[in-house]
């Protein structure tokens, strides 16, 4: 019977991580950091799906959220940067 609190604890930690990732994605100044934080939410959502016994959904989220979404966002950010010198300063902060 001791296995149930571990799963509950795990779910709480992961859900807190998801919410923090979402909050950071809205609040952070640097756009790249916002995309990375959204990636964190997607990563933990995938583990939550495994906990909820839906490995198919977890696999879809893993294969799409891990790379493809980040990549498309980064391409769009790269294409919409006006000035090369300013964005480099933004990346370094």
């Amino acid at each position: 019977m001791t296995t149930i609190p571990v799963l509950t604890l795990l779910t709480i930690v992961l859900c807190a991580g998801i919410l923090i990732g979402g909050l950071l994605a809205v609040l952070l100044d640097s756009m790249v950091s916002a995309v990375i934080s959204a990636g964190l939410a997607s990563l933990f959502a995938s583990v939550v799906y495994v906990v909820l016994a839906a490995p198919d959904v977890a696999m879809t989220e893993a294969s799409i959220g891990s790379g493809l979404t980040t990549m498309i966002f980064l391409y769009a950010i790269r294409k919409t940067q006006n000035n090369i010198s300013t964005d480099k300063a933004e990346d370094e902060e």
Partner: protein
Amino acid sequence: MNNISLSEITVIISAVLIFFSIVFGIIRLAVGPNTVDRVVAIDLLTIVTIALIALLAHQAERYIYLDVALVYGLLSFLGVLAVARFLERGI
């Protein structure tokens, strides 16, 4: 409650250690002074996630959950690589 087996104690200890690792990673993601620090946190979290999913498969006694860990093992480096190449103006 005396009939907790060795295996369950191990799972609990490992899970708690991994929780702490996840919490530290999230803190580094939140406070990281620059973008590279945040990417390092994400890198840590993806790899920890592989171990966590394997542990979940062990806990649920289902062989098939390992397929999800396989996807992460093969694809998780792509997100980090994408951000790294973006930062050095490679894409």
